[in-house]
């Protein structure tokens, strides 16, 4: 970033808005916005409580399980749809509907099906993340250069070789893009699921803080979640950049 002919460090935006927040908070303009330093203090205090640690564990577990399921279902389904035209015709429309549908509306139905527990959260996370993974995997598989497949066949590749040594690797940039977007959606899923169920994990904490107007704790938890979502997406983004060099190099 550059302004007035000078380089501005990326951290500047963060510092600037933290400062603005602090000033608004100190001026006591809005009850909802306590000073930023107070939020940080609340954050430091919060992470030490057993209640928070239990909620974090539960949230991470639901997130990891749901995301794992989304990968386990999404990638094979995407590969299938990329390779078999009948599967694409049968499922393509639905995947596209679900990718853009407001899935929050379905969470109450999931609650009825799976009860007010962790299973509902896991299913919600999976449902939020899986569709974009399917879609991007399919796109990646469909764009694999057909002559790479011919090449492998001409050197005696088996069916398994074609998938393991060519298709999945050639589609990796798209698959990773899908996983990154899936993770961002999964974070939304885990929060929305817990908020709607509202008796477990961070949902319970959010409910507690907002009901009792504990705004410092509320913001602390929000900041933590935002940071996690960014960090997780950034991590996959880093892996993505490692394979980026060949995403463009394909004919």
């Amino acid at each position: 970033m550059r302004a007035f002919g000078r380089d501005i460090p990326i951290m500047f935006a963060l510092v600037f808005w933290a400062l603005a927040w602090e000033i608004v908070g100190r001026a006591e303009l809005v009850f909802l916005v306590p000073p930023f330093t107070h939020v940080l203090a609340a954050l430091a205090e919060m992470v030490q409580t057993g209640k928070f640690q239990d909620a974090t564990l539960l949230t991470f577990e639901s997130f990891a399980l749901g995301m794992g399921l989304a990968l386990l279902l999404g990638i094979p389904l995407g590969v299938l749809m990329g390779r078999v035209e009948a599967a694409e015709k049968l499922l393509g429309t639905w995947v596209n509907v679900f990718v853009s549908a407001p899935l929050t509306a379905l969470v109450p139905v999931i609650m009825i099906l799976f009860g007010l527990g962790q299973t509902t959260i896991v299913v919600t996370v999976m449902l939020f993340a899986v569709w974009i993974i399917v879609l991007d995997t399919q796109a990646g598989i469909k764009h694999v250069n057909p002559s790479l497949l011919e090449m492998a066949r001409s050197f005696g590749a088996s069916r398994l070789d074609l998938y393991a040594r060519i298709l999945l690797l050639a589609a990796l940039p798209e698959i990773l893009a899908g996983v990154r977007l899936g993770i961002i959606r999964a974070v939304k899923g885990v929060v929305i699921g817990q908020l709607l169920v509202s008796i477990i994990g961070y949902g319970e904490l959010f409910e507690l803080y907002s009901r009792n107007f504990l705004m410092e704790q509320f913001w602390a938890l929000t900041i933590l979640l935002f940071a996690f979502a960014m960090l997780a997406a950034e991590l996959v983004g880093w892996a993505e950049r490692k394979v980026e060099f060949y995403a463009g190099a394909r004919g």
Partner: protein
Amino acid sequence: MKTSGTTDPVETATKPDGIVQARGISKTYDGGIQALEGIDLGFPKGELTTLLGPSGCGKTTLLKIIAGLLEPSAGTIIVNGRAVTGPGPERAFVFQDFALMPWASVLRNVAFGLELRGVPRHERHVIARSHIAKVGLAGFEERYPHELSGGMRQRVGLARALAVDAEVLLMDEPFSAVDEQTRRKFQEDLLHLIQSENKTFIFVTHSIEEAVYVSDQVVLLTPRPGAVSRVIRTGLDHGGSPEELRRNKRYLDMVEEIWQMLRGYLV
């Protein structure tokens, strides 16, 4: 079929003998387009045969049928006396668009055919390195395809085909995606390769000069559906210097003669 004045290098009889034989090969695609019709051809061992013809005459289709990558609608390909049912270790393919794995180093790309055959890592790397050196890419083993020029990429494709030590090398317009200078150098290197490797080459090109320059035998195909129009023995000495060959009167006459035959197919 038009038959203009024939001179001594032209021979119309095409007895299907040789290491690779095409017997009654026809190919009709699903859409009903007929690409090839009744191809009978023999490819003599240790020679380079070029399939030459206008765009869409099915020359690449024929090559892929020989490779076992496509199935003919009728007819059989015989290699070493056995009917072809799919790709086999005695045939190796060089692709027009190189078909290199962008995620793999030059070394791994060249060793890929051996990797698929289960050759142990160390052994296949030793073999791959020697072929990388043979095509003039020593020192580039750890580079990736996107770091190489078009000509270098095709050398990798060639090294990969050589590494599996197949008797028959199938080359689909291997030099069409590289620039003119590289192309000439490539053609000269190919001639050295033929001299030293004692392999059978089947080569597809749309360039008349290239066909005559590198071939012992040129097969002219008619436009769709592709059928054998002529089989021409070039009778050129490929062992001499490239400069001599390019100025050779027989070479120049033959290029002109083939052009006269082919121009009849153009609209």
